[in-house]
């Protein structure tokens, strides 16, 4: 049951973008068309799930026994950088068009606050190994959901009239704000009603 709780929390209630403000750069930058948004979403989900699990292991197997938790920031970011490199190579091998579409944003997953953010949040919440993995996965799904909705909205916006000064990024932020407003409907009370 707690796993379902974690999933609902990170997909809807504490949505990584619309509630926690992690990973805004790709949210604004890669959401111009649906195809690349979905690609980015899946890449982030994949990296996040792996990263949460890996950083949990590093934290509990290496850092705590050695008493060097202060190295947390450095080790986590290096592990994530390595993982991103791996994902980049895999995508380049499997789907060159997708690799082309994601362009400079794939290496930028390293400096995507969402990936490091969820790893740190999992450690702060003292999650276990599976819980960390589930939290990472759920946060990734939340990211995918938000960026997919956003890209669909922006494709529609392309054909609509938008005041001159709000075209481009400003209207993207305002759209994001209205989406965040809608996501406020999901709160802790909903979770309590669903799973007691």
């Amino acid at each position, binding site marked *: 049951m707690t796993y379902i709780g974690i999933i609902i929390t990170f997909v809807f209630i504490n949505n990584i973008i619309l509630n926690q*403000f992690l990973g805004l750069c790709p949210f604004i930058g890669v959401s111009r068309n649906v195809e690349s948004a979905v690609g980015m979403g899946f890449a982030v989900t994949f990296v996040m799930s792996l990263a949460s699990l890996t950083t949990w292991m590093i934290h509990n197997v290496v850092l705590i026994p050695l008493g060097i938790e202060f190295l947390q*920031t450095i080790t986590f*970011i290096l592990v994530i950088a390595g993982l991103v490199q791996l994902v980049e190579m895999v995508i380049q091998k499997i789907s060159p068009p997708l690799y082309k579409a994601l362009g400079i944003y794939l290496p930028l997953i390293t400096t995507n606050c969402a990936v*490091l953010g969820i790893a740190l949040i999992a450690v702060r919440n003292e999650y276990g190994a599976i819980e960390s993995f589930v939290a990472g996965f759920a946060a990734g799904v939340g990211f995918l959901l938000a960026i997919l909705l956003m890209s669909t909205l922006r494709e529609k916006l392309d054909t609509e009239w938008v005041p001159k000064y*709000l075209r481009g990024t400003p209207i993207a932020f305002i759209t994001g704000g209205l989406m*965040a407003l809608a996501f406020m409907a999901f709160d802790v009370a909903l979770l309590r009603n669903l799973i007691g």
Partner: protein
Amino acid sequence: MSTMTTLTRGVYRENPIFVIMLGLCPALAVSTQVVNALGMGAGVIFVLVCSNAFVSLLKDFIPEKVRIPAYIVIIASFVTVVDLSMQAFAPALSRNLGVFVQLIVVNCVILGRAEAFAAKNTVGSSVLDGIGMGLGFTLALVVIALIREVLGNGTITVFPVGGFDGTFVIPGLSEQPVRIMSLAAGALLVMGYLKGLLNVIEDVRARARSAATRSATRDGGRA
């Protein structure tokens, strides 16, 4: 490029938040109170100046292929310094900022400046660039925080000094604040409208310039 331009460029013309649009996540997440914005700004200035200085010092020794990981290690070290110092000397601020202190390490502004400026320039101008960009970041954060806190809570919170508890209360607004502004949705809305406002200002300035030079080619705003 003159020393002065290196310093002031980051504040307005190449403001990291409003113009280059880097480092947005912390900017929107911690801008609920002015004091948080100032604390975050101070942390970013420190990390930015130190990492720019070190990247610039070590630029001839870091092999081209591993430069990004090397920069990240330099940045992460200074972020750890900030994180631990903040926990020790300003525990309340550290609690407010939460995970975002450690997340300075993935603030794109810092890696961006290391790669785009510090790796190609002298130590002196890199430090100046760090100060300028850091100030621009802080300024943008404070502007967003000011709007959000005044509208969303009717207060302005700064550091407590002596008998003053650090909170200005704005009569009228504090009884009936626009609560949405201090929540997640408000941050995105404020950012969107501010960026729109900036576009208007840029356009007016561009018109003034082209009128002054009596240039025939007039560009009515950006696409």
